[in-house]
């Protein structure tokens, strides 16, 4: 098509402006797609933080709060729950497995979680994936074994056999340390992209042991102190834990078990469905996510308006070009078509370059993003949703291109063959 050739040649004649215009569109398209991709992946990875667990049970508070501290290790429990409540439900015939969780200590900013070995065999994330060890073994009889999440091991450079000291409380800098009872790294988990990576796992016995000589929230002094060796010989059955997770034999029973737990007479408990609570939590963050999307849409609009401005500005200085074209037989609609094609060419160049930037960016940042944010950004072809977005951008560009096209049409009718300037 000869008009396209003319449009491209004319653009090439103004290549610096054309390049800048297409580059602005490319950046905006890249931003929009990047936001889209991160959004999609964040939502997917968020939803797959925990799977296979039917109920999470903790002290009575809010469901989001319970989800935050039991799964995301954010915030604190309002209260503990009694060990016998846990045992009551762990031994219920409808329950297939139960994982106790005991929180409250930390190590250099990473949370420590006391649990049982059931955690390693039953906890699932993502698409029903089990936890796997990259090195070593789960903790065993020794209460001072610790299994590290992948990020903890990597960030703090721990390897098997290293000794570490836990701190009381969850502040990044804790003044009270359990330095009389150091733990030994016996295992490191494989990366999951979930909060598990940022957790140190010890046995409930270990959790009990470091607090065995504590009274009213402060460690015993002098003769009251119990050494690690003494603790090892003691009965380290906890009396309270923070929460527990349940897997049921029959999913249909989920609601009746949930109702039962919520009405448990011996202690005020709260049971939540993780999926529902995740939804609730995501809807809280959805606003921010949508705001991001809207902002990137406006950036695209800005890029397109830049294009509109560039073409409109060029119109006046191109009256001669239009008149010459008219004199060699171009009809007004040819002139209009030329400008629409110009807008289209700029938009297509911008979109292609934007995709190029996006893929280059993903290729460069993929490893970093996964290591630091647990987000896997795939180098995949645009999804149908992304294609739709691109088509809308192209449509908007065409619409914008028709503004200068209309003006040029009118102008070339009025100017005819007379050349101004």
């Amino acid at each position: 098509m000869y008009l396209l050739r003319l449009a491209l040649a004319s653009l090439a004649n103004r290549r610096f402006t054309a390049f800048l215009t297409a580059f602005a569109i490319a950046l905006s398209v890249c931003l929009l797609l990047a936001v889209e991709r991160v959004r999609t992946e964040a939502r997917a990875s968020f939803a797959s933080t925990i799977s296979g667990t039917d109920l999470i049970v903790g002290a009575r508070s809010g469901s989001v709060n319970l989800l935050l501290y039991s799964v995301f290790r954010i915030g604190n429990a309002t209260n503990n729950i009694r060990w016998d409540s846990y045992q009551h439900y762990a031994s219920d015939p409808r329950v297939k497995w139960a994982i106790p969780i005991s929180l409250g200590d930390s190590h250099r900013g990473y949370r420590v979680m006391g649990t049982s070995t059931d955690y390693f065999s039953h906890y699932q994330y993502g698409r029903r994936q089990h936890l796997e060890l990259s090195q070593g073994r789960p903790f065993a009889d020794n209460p001072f074994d610790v299994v590290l999440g992948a990020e903890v091991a990597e960030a703090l450079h721990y390897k098997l056999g290293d000794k570490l000291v836990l701190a009381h409380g969850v502040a990044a800098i804790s003044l009270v340390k359990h330095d009389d009872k150091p733990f030994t790294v016996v295992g490191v988990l494989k990366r999951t992209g979930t909060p598990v990576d940022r957790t140190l796992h010890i046995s409930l016995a270990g959790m009990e042991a470091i607090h065995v000589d504590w009274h009213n929230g402060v460690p015993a002094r002098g003769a009251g102190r119990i050494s690690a060796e003494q603790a090892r010989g003691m009965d380290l059955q906890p009396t309270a834990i923070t929460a527990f997770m349940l897997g049921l034999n029959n999913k249909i029973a989920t609601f009746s078990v949930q109702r039962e737990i919520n009405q448990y007479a011996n202690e005020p408990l709260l049971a939540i469905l993780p999926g529902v609570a995740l939804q609730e939590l995501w809807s809280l963050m959805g606003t921010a996510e949508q705001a991001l999307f809207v902002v990137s849409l406006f950036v695209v609009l800005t890029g397109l308006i830049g294009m509109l401005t560039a073409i409109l500005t060029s119109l006046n200085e191109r009256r001669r070009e239009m008149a010459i074209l008219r004199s060699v037989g171009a009809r007004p609609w040819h002139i209009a078509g030329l400008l629409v094609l110009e807008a289209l060419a700029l938009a297509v160049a911008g979109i292609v370059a934007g995709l190029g930037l996006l893929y280059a960016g993903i290729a460069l940042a993929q490893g970093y993003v996964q290591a630091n944010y647990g987000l896997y950004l795939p180098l995949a072809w645009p999804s149908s949703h992304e294609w739709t977005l691109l088509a809308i951008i192209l449509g908007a560009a065409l619409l914008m291109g028709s503004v200068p096209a209309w003006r040029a049409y009118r102008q070339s009718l009025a100017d005819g063959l007379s050349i101004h300037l």
Partner: protein
Amino acid sequence: MSQALIELRDLLFAWPGQAPLLDIPQFRLEAGEALFLKGPSGSGKTTLLGLLGGVNLPAQGSVRLLGQTLAELGQGARDRFRVDHTGYIFQQFNLLPFLSVRENVELPCRFSASRAERARQRHGSVDQAATQLLAHLGLTDPAMLARRADSLSIGQQQRVAAARALIGQPELVIADEPTSALDADTREAFIRLLFDECRAAGSSLLFVSHDQSLAPLFDRHLSLAELNRAAAPREA
């Protein structure tokens, strides 16, 4: 009397809200004729060319080109009729700077199938037609034909414009002050080249200029002021 190439009859034209600019009772340009039309700027020259091109339509009277009354055609048909039968040369900066010399010459054949067809019939192909026309006009260097049009000198550009007006043998070539940017020596040489090529292509030439000194070169010369009754009071 044989059919005239251009025939104006009782033509009256005024821009909206203004006094009549053109009032031409009668004007004819015969086929194969080279006519010098003297018209100083502001004499309605551009408007007259617009009427001949079918870009504007007269308020009264008729403009006939090759026996066709332009007002009877729709706007699109007038555009097509113009490019099929008329080649234009303007004062200067006639060429699209971002196209090659060759592409500039071939432009009319892109928009007019009949001119492309005639170029093929006479020269074998549009490409050949452009090469030969440019060669006749003294532009023989093949490397030059591939260069951007704005890399040529003004004199060379005007010859390229002439080749473009002549490609596909339109019946009429309208030249609007084509020599005003040229110096005196090249001016006459350019006009003689233009004559030769118009004769070879069988095209009539309507040459509009304010430069009376060129008039003796032509078969016939007229002054727009004499033709145009609307201009008379201003001249007096």
